[in-house]
Structures are given as C-alpha cells and as structure tokens.
C-alpha cells in the first residue's frame, strides 16, 4: 500500500516506524536497477563468451540457469524497494557481478574438466547462489532493524564458537586437503560452518565491544607512549587469541584463524581507539604463528613455499609450491589483457575454481580484469565503511565496518597468498570462489550491509 502515495504514507505513519526524511522517491533504487541490469548483462555475456571460447558453440543449459539467477537478484531488488528503499545502491550490483563472473569461470573450468550435470561445480554454484540470494532476502525481510541483533550479542557469540568447532565433532567433520573445516550435509555436499561463524562473531564482537568499551579503553597505565590495559581486562583478547590458535592447531587452517583474529583486532581498535590493543594483538598472533611455524609442519611448509616458491626442491616437494607456481604461470600467461574467456588453461592449476579462482581469472581476463575485480571489492568495502562513517549508533557502525572489513581481509589473505604477498592459506575469495557456505555467508553480509545502509539514511538528521 505504501507505494500508492508517499504523502499519505507519511501521514498514516504507524507509531513503530521511524520518522522518514523527505526525499525523491526511489531514486537510489532506480540507480540500483540500472547497475543491476548492467551486472546481469556482464554475467550473461561472460557465460556466452566462455561457451564461444571453450566450446565453440552455445549451450542453453547454463544460460537458463543464469537467467534464473538474474530473476532472483531482481527479486531481491524488488524486496529492497519495499523493505529497505534507502539502502545503498552499489552493494547489490557488485555482489551480483562478482557472483556471476565467478560462476562463468567455474563453468569454464568445468568445460575443461568435462564435467556436467550435478557433477558440474558451476551448476552447484548456481544453485548455491540461488539459495544464498534467497537467504539474503530472508535476512532483509526478518531483520527490519539491525539493533535487534544487539539483543542477541551473547547468543551470536555462542553460535559463532559452536559453528567454528562443529567440524571437530567426530562423524560430522570432514577433512579436505589437510584442513578440517568442513561438515558433511547429507548428500548435498560439504559445508564450511566457519564461513557463517564469521557473521555471528562480527555481531558478537560489535555487541560485546559496545557494551564493554569503557573498561577496555579508559583504564590502564601508560607505557612507552601508549596506554596499556589492566591485566584483568585482557580476558577477551586472550580468549579470541586462544580461539584462533586452536583453529590453527586443531583445524589446521591458518587463513581462517588470521581472518577471525584480524576482524577482532580491528573492531577492538575501532571501539576503544587504543593502538596498544592492536600492538599487543599483533604481537600475540605473530608469536603464535612463529611458534606454529616451528612446531607444525603444515605451517612451516606454507612459509617455505612462500619465500622460496621457484626453488625446484620446494616445487617438487609433497605439499610444496607446485600449486602456487602453477598459479603464477597462469597469471603470467594472462599478462595485461588476458587470453580471453575460455582461451587460457586455468585447469592446469590445482583447484582453479576455489582458492585459485583469482589466478584463473587473471589468466583469462588479464591484469585489467584483476584490477576491475579488485576495484569492485574495494568499492564494496568502501560502501560498508561509508555506513560506518555515517552511522549514529555505535553498534551499527561497528557491525558495518566489521562486516566490510572481513570481506577486505579475506580478499587480502587469499589474493595476497596467490600473488605471494603473504604465505598462501586456504580461504575462499568472497562471491567469486566455488563454495556454497561462502556464498551464503557473503550474501548475508551483503543483506546486512543493505539493511544497515537503509537504517543510516533513515535516521532523523539532527542539526548540530
């Protein structure tokens, strides 16, 4: 009914709805629709180009699936018109184009490996995308105000920790290439609960820090120009540190540990404004990582592969730098402009559709393509930070920045690993990489950012 008349809607405003600012109706949504159509066009042409490049003919199956996906994102857009009409107009198109380009590349690798039907990772990825976008719609419909989440701070924390350690439950957990971060879900495949855990933990960190920031930032003694906290206030950081270390030791997953700890540190810094926390935290993590690299073989191997990748001995070693170097060969082959969709050989690199999807894209789309993808990520993250700058409640600010930062950090860890900025650790590239849990988690992050951005714009502006 609301769309009938803005004026009447304003007059007949129910008591529980926030005061709305007068503005041009749906201008943001129209921009979003325009960008969304461009995104859908890019996605469709990517799939068509893959077919022309790798198959030499058009195959309607995936085009149909792709159309289904376009219908879903446009439904999400329509939902936004009703429940979050002032949401940020860039987030949805960016997520859509990244997701679509990812599917095109996964499809391209399926063609190289001659996979089709349910064995095709692209088909599964498309189904997962549908599920993920549907989850985003549900999140937008259910969570009408992000402050609801504040109430569930500790429950979110508990859920996060449980999800994180679910793969360690005997009979449920699944070990893939050394890391134990998956659980088996019937015949549907594997699920990485840690991906969802990062959202729960971001909610928990935001809620907890907003509640306890005073004791964490005010008290303490000055030392070397920075104010260090009292010993009894060290509890939370030590707990999160222990959590990360146990992920390294028991789940053998360096990347996830780094992601959670980095997220916590940044949110802690934002909440308290104390650089000493960051210094302490980095010291703790680096200390832990150094000890781990000395005592845990897999961590040590990661460091060797990183520093001495092209050494033939390291290259040929079991668990050596073969994959890393193959990825570099792929990127080199791509050069500035890439080979074009379907024209490269990304399938020569192990797992080219998940951890190494960025190398696969670099091979076929070139440095130009990678720059475009990085720019999209940066824009996505920037929109999240924008909410943080504009927001007026600390919980919302912290949550938005935390969620955006987790995407940025994840990109950095995985792309940095592939291009030898840091040691390679297994993580999915947000929205792009094959992996259902990652898609669901990132689309929920997108939904939460959309919700937060809508709330921010709808807050009554106080003139000060």
């Amino acid at each position: 009914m609301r769309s009938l008349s803005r004026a009447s809607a304003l007059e007949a405003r129910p008591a529980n709805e926030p005061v709305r600012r007068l503005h041009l109706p749906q201008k943001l949504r129209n921009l979003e629709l325009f960008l969304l159509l461009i995104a859908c066009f890019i996605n469709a042409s990517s799939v068509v180009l893959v077919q022309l490049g790798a198959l030499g003919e058009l195959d309607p199956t995936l085009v149909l699936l792709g159309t289904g996906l376009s219908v879903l994102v446009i439904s999400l857009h329509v939902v936004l018109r009703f429940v979050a009409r002032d949401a940020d107009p860039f987030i949805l198109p960016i997520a859509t184009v990244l997701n679509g380009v990812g599917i095109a590349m996964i499809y391209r690798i399926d063609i190289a490996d001659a996979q089709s039907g349910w064995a095709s990772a692209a088909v599964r990825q498309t189904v997962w995308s549908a599920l993920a976008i549907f989850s985003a719609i549900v999140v937008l419909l259910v969570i009408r105000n992000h402050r609801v989440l504040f109430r569930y701070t500790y429950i979110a924390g508990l859920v996060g920790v449980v999800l994180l350690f679910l793969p360690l439950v005997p009979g449920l957990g699944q070990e893939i290439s050394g890391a134990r971060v998956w659980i088996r879900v019937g015949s549907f495949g594997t699920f990485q609960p840690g991906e969802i855990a990062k959202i729960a933990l971001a909610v928990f960190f935001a809620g907890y820090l907003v509640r306890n920031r005073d004791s964490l930032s005010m008290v303490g003694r000055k030392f070397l120009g920075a104010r260090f906290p009292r010993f009894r206030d060290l509890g939370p950081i030590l707990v999160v540190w222990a959590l990360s270390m146990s992920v390294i030791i028991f789940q053998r997953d360096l990347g996830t540990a780094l992601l959670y700890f980095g997220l916590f540190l940044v949110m802690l810094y934002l909440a308290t404004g104390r650089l000493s926390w960051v210094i302490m935290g980095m010291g703790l993590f680096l200390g832990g990582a150094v000890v781990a690299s000395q005592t845990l073989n897999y961590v040590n191997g990661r460091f060797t592969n990183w520093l001495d990748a092209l050494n033939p001995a390291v290259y040929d070693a079991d668990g050596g730098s073969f994959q890393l170097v193959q990825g570099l060969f792929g990127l080199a082959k791509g050069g500035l402009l890439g080979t074009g969709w379907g024209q490269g050989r990304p399938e020569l690199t192990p797992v080219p559709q998940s951890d190494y999807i960025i190398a696969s894209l670099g091979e076929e789309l070139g440095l130009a393509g990678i720059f475009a993808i990085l720019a999209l990520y940066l824009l996505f993250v920037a929109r999240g930070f924008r909410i943080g700058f504009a927001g007026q409640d600390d919980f919302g600010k912290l949550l938005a920045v935390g969620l955006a930062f987790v995407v940025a950090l994840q990109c950095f860890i995985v792309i940095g690993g592939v291009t030898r900025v840091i040691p390679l650790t297994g993580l999915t590239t947000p929205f792009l990489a094959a992996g259902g849990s990652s898609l669901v988690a990132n689309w929920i992050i997108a939904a939460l950012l959309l919700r937060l951005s809508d709330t921010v714009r709808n807050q009554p502006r106080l003139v000060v």
Partner: protein
Amino acid sequence: MNRELKRVSIVVMLMFGALLTSTSIVQAFQADNLSADPRNTRTLYDSYQVERGAILVAGDPIAQSMPVDDDFKFLRTYTNPELYAPITGYIPINGEPTGLEFALNAELTGTSNSQFFDKISALVTGQEPKGAAVEVTIDTVAQQAAWDALGEYTGSVVVTEPATGRILAMVSKPSFNPNLLTVHNNAEVTTSYEALLADENAPLINRAINSLNPPGSIFKLVVTTAALESGSYTPESTFPNVAVYTAPGTTSKIENSSGGTCGAGDTVTLATALRLSCNVPFAELGVELGDTAIRETAEKFGFNGTYSIPMTVTESNYPRGLDDPQTAQSAFGQYDVRTTPLQMAMVSAAIANGGIVMAPNLVQEILAPNLSAIETFEPTELGRVMSEETAATLTAMMINGVQDGAASNARIDGVDVAGKTGTAQNGSTDPFTLWFTGFAPANDPQYAITVLIENGGGMGQTGFGNLLAAPVAQKVLEAVLNK
C-alpha cells in the same frame, strides 16, 4: 570512532594497494620470466596449438605435424628420421627442442616478428593459425650418398656449395630416430632419451657442427694458405728434408708418418710436402711463420668464431700464445687445434671459391602457409681469406695430392678432384681421427666435401685418412657429379 575508522580505511587501502602491486609484478614484470620457465606447461601446450610448419627438403616434408586427438592436437612426425635427424633435431613434449626445430622455433610456430602481419590477417579472416614451413638447402642425392658412403663409421659428412655456402648434405652417424622423442608420453620420451644419452657413440650429437676433433694434416691447407699469402713462400720454397725434427726449445721429436724423409733429396718443396702430407716440413714452416700468422689465417677461415646456420656451430679453435714447439705441432693440426667438419668444409669451399669464405647456411626459404616466401636466404660473404692466385695455386697443389699423392683414393675418372687427407692422433693409444676435405670438379668447383671418421673407423691406430675417409668422399662426389 571516526578517527579510528579513517585509519582502518587507510589500512584497507594499503592492503588493496599491495594486491594491485603484487598482481602487476606477476602479470606485467615477471610474466616473461615465468613464461620462459621450463616447468611452465602452458607455454609448451601453446606451442602445440598452432600447426607447426613443416621442414621441407626439395618440397617434401622431413618433419611435419600430424593432427591427433589429444591435448597436444598435433604429433610431430619425421620422415626418413635417421637420415635427417642432424638437420631437423626434434621437439619433445617435456624438454627443449634441438636442431632446426629449436633454431627456427619462432618461424615454425608462426610467432616470429616477420609473421606478425600474417597473424593479424589470420585473425581477421578466421583462418586457423599455422606456422611457417622451412625449405632447407639439402640436396637429396648428396644427403643419401653421404649417408650410404659413410656406412657404419662413426663420423660425419658435410657437402657444401662453394659459391654460396649452401649446405647440400649434412650426415652424422650413428644417428637416432627423432620420432621416439616426440611421442606424447613423458615416460616414454624420457626412457628413449636416457637410452640415447647413455649410448657411448653419442647418437644425439650432430657431429657435423658440434663435434670437435684435431684436424691433423687437413689443417696443412690453412698453414699453406698462411705461407703463400705471406708472400715469402711459393710452392717451390724448400725446407730441410730430415726424418726427425726437433723444434727450438724442446727435445720432443716430430716425424713424418712414413717414418722416413719426405721423398728423396736434401730439401723438399712446399708442394711436395703438401702432396705427400709430410709433418716435418710443415713443422719447420709453422715455426718460421709463427703462431700469429697461422692463427690470423685460421680466423679468416672462421676458426675461433661461432656462426649460425641457423643452428649454432661449435667454435673451432686455433689457440693463442703458442710457443715454438706448440706451433710446430699445430702446423700439422695437432696440439690443441680442434675443428668441426663444417669448419673444414668452409676451408675447402673458400679455396674452391677463389679465396672468398661464404657463410654456411642450411635454410633456403621460409614459406608462409600460402607458400609465399617470407624470407629467402641470399649467399653471404664472410670475407676474403686469400687472393685468387693463392686459391688457384692451392687448388693445383690439392689436385696433385689426389692424382699423385696422399689422397689418391679420392680419384674419380674424368674429373679433377682437389683434396687433402688427414690422420689425427688423439693421445698415444686412442684411435685416430680420419679426415678428407676437398672439392670437385677442381676447374669449376660445384661441391666441397669434408669427411670425418671418428674412433679410427674401427681400426684403432692402423687406419688412415686415405684408406677410410677418401673413399667415402670419392663415392659421394661421384654420386653428385653423375646426378
């Protein structure tokens, strides 16, 4: 909180800056190095994606790419593989190519600069990209005759055209079958390769251009050139005719291969010394000329330098800074003088060509897929090494050597053959290296030939150049002259 947020934003910008930098480094700055890495199978597969051009002899392929149904799309196949192995080389899936496959890889794969516009036009017209074909200068009759004449010997025969430097025959024995090394199976290739590598007769070596041996008496042609060009000597110049010569500053003795003097008389002329291939007079001549004069002449012929035919030819050596005893030894092609058969073929060809050394060359034309010539090789002069008179004098001396001297087994009825044999020592007990180099017809040289027989031709230290190498040359020359 916004102050902290700003700082975190900067950190995020730095993180993405690092990613932009690292991807640029890998994809732009390191790309060439990474592509050249031998472990980079992408580069390898790429080279198989276009139909590699054929290598042609008189229009018939001796190497061509046959379509097959696997990852590599084309199987490189060699016709008459052992005969042409030293020319084609081979291109394995798991290693470096050799021979022309290596030297002309860019042309054969269609990636050379001169094919740039063809590539563009293929892009526009939608044609399948294809490499260029290479027509070699080999003469099938000469190549086959050389192969047959060399028989079971370990060695090489090189035939060139004196006026142009075109290589008409290049045989190396024992040879190998390149088809064994191009199969699309890593393990099979490796097994075949290891077996060939372990073979003590080194079949993978192209002896014509990559095997260095002491030239022995055929090097006397270089010394004679130096002597005649110096102006101080004529064929009638005389040397003391002694059975044993001791160079100044040493006690080691030099003898003629006959063990006696060089013919009758107290003195011997240069012409006789060359005709009978005596060591003592040349040792005396060498010391008189000095090592610098000999080296400078040798270098004009091409010694101490490398050239490409377009395969790279191993550098033949005449060492620097020799003392008298060393110069005396070097004057009849011993001590540290080392040469390839092709280098000696250039010596003969230069004499035949009136004193001008032509650049040896194996490639006639590079042909685009539509058979138009992309590149045609013109004869190139490397320089004049002697006057026409000297060349004529030397030719006459070499004719005498065949008609009435140490190279008598190269004689052909009705044709004057100019030639010189060599029997070089490799240490005190090792088998000799046997040589013949020369050209025919002497009055109008069409073919210059050099025969190398390693390992004593199976006769240890009892074989000699005229016994084993000269007949090989004679058979080949007969075959090409009767064509």
